[in-house]
Each structure stands twice: as C-alpha cells, then as structure tokens.
C-alpha cells in the first residue's frame, strides 16, 4: 500500500466523519421545534485507517446536549403545564448553522486533499511515460 493510497483512505475517513456530523446537524435543525428535544453533538476521535496505521478519524458516540430546555409560553399547547409553559428544544439555529458551515469547510478541505493526492500520484506516473 503506497503513501498515496494511504492518503486517499485517510482523507476518505475525514469525508465520512464530516458527513456524519452534517447528518446529526440536520437532525438538530429538523427537530428545532420538537418539544423536549435535546440537540445531538458529535465528537471526533483518531482511528486506525484501512491499512492498520493510525491517522484516520471517526466519529465518537453521539452525545445529547444537557443544557436546559427552552421554556415556551403557550397555554393552548397540549403539552403545556399549569402555568401555561411547555418545554421546547434546546436547539439554537445560529449555532447549528455555524456548525454546518464549519463542517462544509472541513469537508471541502478533505476533498482538496483527496484531489491533491490523486494529482500527485498521476504526475509521478507521468514521469515514467516520457
């Protein structure tokens, strides 16, 4: 397994991890109005790559954000209690959008590295063709 194919597999693990992160972010945004929903956070951890060498990344276990749920005043809501409040979700759309933008940028960086490794390997083989 050459360095180039190792670079490809490590980059691919990064792409996969960022896609996973984006998936959980979209779950959070979709459930922003769900009463009692706690936002999910994704952690990254180093993993062994496909070749058994360290350097790849994978997503760790999904954790729930334990911060307080937002209390919404709506006496007509079926879930509202005695005081007319019910517990909404603790999703902050601004944070989710910022996080999504960061995931997108990291994804693009990984894609760039993928392209770079491919270009480098084909340039190397071009040397042989002359």
């Amino acid at each position, binding site marked *: 397994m050459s360095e180039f194919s190792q670079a490809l597999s490590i980059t*691919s693990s990064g*792409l*996969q991890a960022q896609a996973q992160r984006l998936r959980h972010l979209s779950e959070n945004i979709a459930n922003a109005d769900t009463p009692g929903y706690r936002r999910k956070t994704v952690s990254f951890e180093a993993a062994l790559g496909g070749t058994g060498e360290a350097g790849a990344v994978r997503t760790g276990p999904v954790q729930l954000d334990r911060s307080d749920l937002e209390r919404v005043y709506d006496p007509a809501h079926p879930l509202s209690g005695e005081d007319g409040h019910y517990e909404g979700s603790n999703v902050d759309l601004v944070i989710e959008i910022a996080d999504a933008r960061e995931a997108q940028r990291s994804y693009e960086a990984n894609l760039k590295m993928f392209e770079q490794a*491919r270009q480098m390997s*084909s340039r190397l083989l071009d040397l*042989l063709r002359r």
Partner: protein
Amino acid sequence: MEISALAAARGYLDSRPATDPGPGSGGPAEAMAGVARDFAATLQEGEATAKAAMAGEADPHALVQALAQTELAVETAVTVRDKVVEAYQEILRMPV
C-alpha cells in the same frame, strides 16, 4: 601479524550474514508476484465496493475512495507495462 589477519577473517565472517538476502525476499520474481497480487486485490475490492454501492449498502465515500485507488493501481500497472514493452522492443532493435 598473523593474529590481525585472523581477526580480519573472523570479522569478515561475522559481517557476512548481514549482506545475505533474508529468508522472506525471494528476488525480483517474488516481488513482482507480490505487486501483481496487490493489484488484483485492489481491483477486486473496488469492484466489490461498487457492487455494494449500487445495492445501496456502501457509503458513497467508500465508493469514491475504492474507485480512485483502483484508478491509481491500473494507471501504475499500465505505465509499468508500457515501459517494459518499450524496453523489450529496444532490445529487439539491437543490430546483431
């Protein structure tokens, strides 16, 4: 004087095993066979991943990675083959 010659001979004997080929390396033929096996395995993996992706089982990232690796392997094999054939033709053109 004799002792130093003896020491030199012994030193030579001691250091000779370091230059012997190891038990695992069976020369260029073995190395080429290993490369060919690697190549076939990469191709097979790429095909298996493509099939799984068509069936909706594999991640698209895995598909792209497997195809890029297959492309890299095929390109390497083709380039080396071209070079070998070129060298062979060069030898055939030699005036005898």
